C-alpha cells in the first residue's frame, strides 16, 4: 500500500512538472536559431556566393550547422577570427589561399561597350546596377559590394572590378610622429 501511495505521489509530481515544462516550451519558444543571426551579423553581406552558398544568410545557417568558418574571402582573416570566437572553434586560414586582407573592389561598367543586355542587372544581388534593355547600364558604386557576380554573365566582358579609391576619409595615418626636442 505504501508503495502504491509513493507511486501516485511521484507520478502526479512528474505530471505537474511535465505540464509546466511543456507550457514553458511553448510560451518561451525561441523563434529562430539566434546563432544564425549572430553569424550573419559578422559576415560582410557581400552576397557574393564565394563560400558556395547563395548568399550570406545561407552560409550563416551552414556555419550554425557546423560548416567551416573560413570560407568567406571578402571578410578576410578578421571575419574568420570573429566567427571562430563565436563558434568556439579554431581559426583556420582562409580556404582557397586568398589574401588575409581582401582588397575592396567595386564593379565598373565600361559604358561604351555595354550592349544593354540586362544580364548583370539580373545577377546583381543588391540591385546596385541600373539600366534597361538596350540602354547603357551603370553601377551605383555606393551600393556595390564588390561580389564579382556581374562579371561572369556579361556577354561582352565590359565589367571590371576596380579597387576602391582612397579618399581623405578612408586614409590612414602613417606611423611617424613629430618629436620636439629641447635645445639650448
Amino acid at each position, binding site marked *: 500500500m505504501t508503495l502504491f501511495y509513493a507511486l501516485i505521489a511521484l507520478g502526479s509530481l512528474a505530471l505537474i512538472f511535465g505540464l509546466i515544462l511543456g507550457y514553458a516550451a511553448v510560451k518561451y519558444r525561441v523563434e529562430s536559431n539566434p546563432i544564425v543571426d549572430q553569424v550573419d551579423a559578422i559576415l560582410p*553581406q557581400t552576397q557574393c556566393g564565394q563560400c558556395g552558398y547563395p548568399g550570406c544568410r545561407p552560409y550563416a545557417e551552414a556555419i550554425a550547422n557546423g560548416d567551416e568558418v573560413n570560407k568567406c574571402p571578402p571578410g578576410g582573416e578578421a571575419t574568420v577570427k570573429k566567427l571562430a570566437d563565436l563558434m568556439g572553434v579554431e581559426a583556420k586560414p582562409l580556404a582557397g589561399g586568398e589574401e588575409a586582407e581582401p582588397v575592396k573592389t567595386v564593379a565598373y561598367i565600361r559604358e561604351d561597350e555595354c550592349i544593354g543586355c540586362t544580364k548583370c542587372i539580373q545577377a546583381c544581388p543588391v540591385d546596385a546596377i541600373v539600366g534597361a534593355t538596350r540602354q547603357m547600364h551603370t553601377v551605383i558604386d555606393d551600393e556595390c559590394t564588390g561580389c564579382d557576380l556581374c562579371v561572369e554573365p556579361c556577354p561582352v566582358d*565590359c565589367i571590371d572590378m576596380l579597387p576602391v579609391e582612397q579618399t581623405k576619409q578612408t586614409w590612414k595615418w602613417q606611423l611617424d610622429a613629430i618629436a620636439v626636442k629641447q635645445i639650448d
Partner: protein
Amino acid sequence: MDSLVEQIERGTLWQFPGGVHPPEQKSLSNQLPIARLPLPDKIVLPLKQHIGANGQLLVNKGDKILKGQPLTKPSANWSLPVHAPTSGKILDITSAPSSHPSALPELSIIIAPDGNDMWCDLTPVDDITQLTHKQLVDILHSAGIAGMGGAGFPTYIKADSHQPIEYLIVNGVECEPYITADDLLMQEHATEIVQGIEIMQQLLKPQRVLVGIEDNKPQAIAAMARACEHNSAILVRTIPTKYPSGGEKQLIRVLTSKEVPSSGIPADIGVLVQNVGTLFAVSEAVNKGKPLIERVVTVTGNTIDKPQNVWALIGSEIKHLLDSQGFTPVAEQRVIMGGPMMGFTLPTVRIPVIKTTNCILAPDNRELVEPGDEKACIRCSACADACPQTLLPQQLQWFAKSKDFEKLEEYNLFDCIECGACSYVCPSEIPLVQYYRVAKAEIREQKLDQIKAERAKERFEARKDRLEQEQQERQNRHKRGASRVTKPEKEKAKVADALERVKQKQGDKSAVQAAIARAKAKKAADGSLEPDNSEVAKERAKRKEQARSYKEQKQSTEGTPANTDDKKDAVAQAIARAKAKKAAKLAEESTPNIEPEQAQPSSENDDPRKAAVAAAIARAKAKKAAKAEENTSSIEPEQAQSSSENDDPRKAAVAAAIARAKAKKAAKAEENTSSIEPEQAQSSSENDDPRKAAVAAAIARAKAKKAAKLAEESTPNIEPEQAQSSSENDDPRKAAVAAAIARAKAKKAAKQVEENTSNVEPEQAQSSSENDDPRKAAVAAAIARAKAKKAAKQAEQNAQATNTNDDLAQPMSELKQIDNALAEQSDSEQLTPEQKRQAAIKAAVAKAKAKKQAKEQEGNDPS
C-alpha cells in the same frame, strides 16, 4: 561655499589633469607685427576646407571673378561656400593636392590673380541690433566661416545652437609651441574681436563671456582687457601656461570646472567655445561684409629668415608663404602644418593654406629631431600622468597594436583629443598618438563597412522578396490565362505557340528565354500593325557589332577553343544565309524583272544588318557553348534560334499568313509542279521551327509569283501576299498592277506547290497551326485589301480605273472566302460558331477601316 557662478565671477581657475610643458618657442615669431604678403601667382582653392559637405560650384573654367565673390553655393547640411580671395580668372577646376597629411587630390578651383585685387560689392551691416537671429546666422553661413582653431567646424551651426548657452568661452589660449597667430591677432585687432564677441552675445545670449588667454601673452591680455572694458559681461581670464589648455574640453574645465561628458559636446553643459580668429572673421563678415578669404598664419622655424605672422590669402600655396619670409631649407627639410605637437609633416609645399591653417613650421634638424626607433614600453605610466583626458594611453596602445577595437572603444579611445602629450613624455619614444589615429581610422572604417553591410543585406532581402513576388504574379497570370482561354482565342493560341516552340527549340532554356519567345510570338502576331522599327534595329546591330569585334579581339588574344566553335557557328550561318540569297537570286534571274522591288527587299533584308546581329548573337552564344563544351550538333539549335530572332516580326506574320492560305489551296487543287520544289525542300529539311517555315513560305511565295508571271494568266484570285508586296512597293501604280497579276500567280503557284505536299506540308501545317486564328487572318487580309485598294486608287488616277476596280470587288469576296475557310479549318481548335461570327465581324470592321484609310490616303495624296 560660493556658488559656481560667484567663483567664476571672482576669477577662480581650476586645473585639468595631466598636461605637459614643452618648450614654447613663441618669441621666434611674436616680435614682429602681422605682415601683408604680396599677391601669389596662383591660388588653389579646395572646395572643402571644413568639416561637412562640399558646396556646389557656381563658376566655370575661364570665368572672371572679383575678390570676395562666392565660388560655391552651400548645398547640403554643414556645407560652407568658398570665396575668391582676390580678383582674377579661373584657370581650371580640377583635383589638386589637399591640405591633409595624405595630400590626396581634392577638387579645387585654380585662380590666376589679375593683380587688381578688386572687391566685389560688399553689404556691411550698420546696426546689428536690427538683424534677426536668422539673418545673422545667414550672414555667418554665406561668409563661409568655419572654426579657425583647427577643426574647421562650421560656425553658423554653433551660432544657431538650440541648447541654452550659459557661458561663451573665447579661446585665445594658443597653447601649442611656436604658434603666435592668435596672440598677434589679439594684440592688433582686439576691438574687432570684441565686436565679434558681441555679435555672438546677441546670437547666443550667454550669461557670461570668458576670454581665456595663457599668461605667456601679456600684451594680448592687455589689449583684450582694454577692448572689452565697456562690456561688463566679458571677463578676461589669464590662465597658467600648460599644454594643452587650449583644448576645448581642457579650457572649459579650467575656466568653469565643468567637464564635457564622454562623446558629448560643450553645448550639452551650456558652454560654447569660439576661437579668437573665428570671432574676428565673424566681425569682418557682419560689420564689413567681408567673407572669410584670408587668415593669420605663423610662418616660423629656424630655417625661416624672418619668422613672423602673415595675412595669408586662403588658397595661397605654402611655398609662397615660405618664400616671402625667406626660406633656406636644410637637408631633409621638413615642413609642418600646424604646431609640433598636433601638426603633420607636409608631403609637398605646393599645397594651399586653408581656413584651418594656423602655422607653417619649417624647423631645422636640431630643433625638431626625427623620432628615434620605437622601444619597448617600460610601463612607466608617464603617459597616463600626462593625459589631459585621463585616459590610459598605455592600455590603449596595447589594444591598438593588437587591433582589439572593442576594447579600444571600451577604454574610450574616441575621447582622445590627439594632443600628443603622451607621445611627448614617452621615454621609449612610442608614437602613441599615431597608433590611436590609425586605430580610430580603422574603427571608423569598420563602422562604415557595417552600415554598408547592413544596407547590402536590406537590399538583398528586398530583392529576394521582389523576385518571389514576381514569380507569384507570373504564376497567377498563367492561371488566369488558362481560365480565360475560351474567350481570347488569340491569346491562347499565342501562349500555346510560344510554349510549344520553346519546348521544341530550347528544351532546357531558362524562363527568361521563354519570356523572350513569348514576347516575340506576340510581336509576330500583331507585328503587321506595328510601325517600322528598322532604325532601332540598325542601331542595335551596330552596337552588337562593336561588342562582337571587342569580343573577337579578346578571344583571339586568349586563343581559347571557343574560337573554333565561334567560327564554325559563323560559317554554318553564313552558308545558310548564302543559300537563301542564292535561291532568291536564281529566282530573280529566271524571270523578267517586273517586280524588282519585291525580290530585292527580301534578299536585301537578310544581309549586312542581319548578318551583324546574327553574328553578335552567335558570338555571345559561342561563349556559352565553349563553356558547356558543346559539340557541333548543339550549335545547331542555337543557330536556329539566332535566325529566328533575326526575322522581322512583321514579315514573319505576313509570311505565315500567306503560307497558311497556300497550304489550304494546295490541299484543294490538284495540279503539277515546277521549279519551286528544290528550295522548299531545302528549307523544310533545314527547318523545324515554325518561324523558319514562315520564311521559307515567303521565299516560296516570291518564286510562285515569278512563276505565275511567266504564265501571265488572269484568274482574279487575291492572296494576302499582296499585302506584303504592295507594302514594299513605293510605286503605287506598279503595286496595283502587281497585285492583280500576283493574285493570279499565287493561285497557280499554289497549285504547283501542291505537288510538293509531301515535303511542304509538315512545315506549312505547322505554320498554319500557329496562325489559324481567324481573327488574325482577318486582320491580315484587311490590311492586304486596304493596301491593294490604295494602290488601286492611285492607279485609278492614272486612268486604269475600271480594271482594278473590278479586281477589287473580287478580292473582297475572295477574302471572305478565305476567312471562312480558315475558320472552318481551325475547327480542329474547336471554334464555336459564335467565334467564327466574331471573326467575321472583325474582318468586316477591319475592312471598313481599311476602306476609310484608303480614302483618306487618296485625299492626302496629291498624285
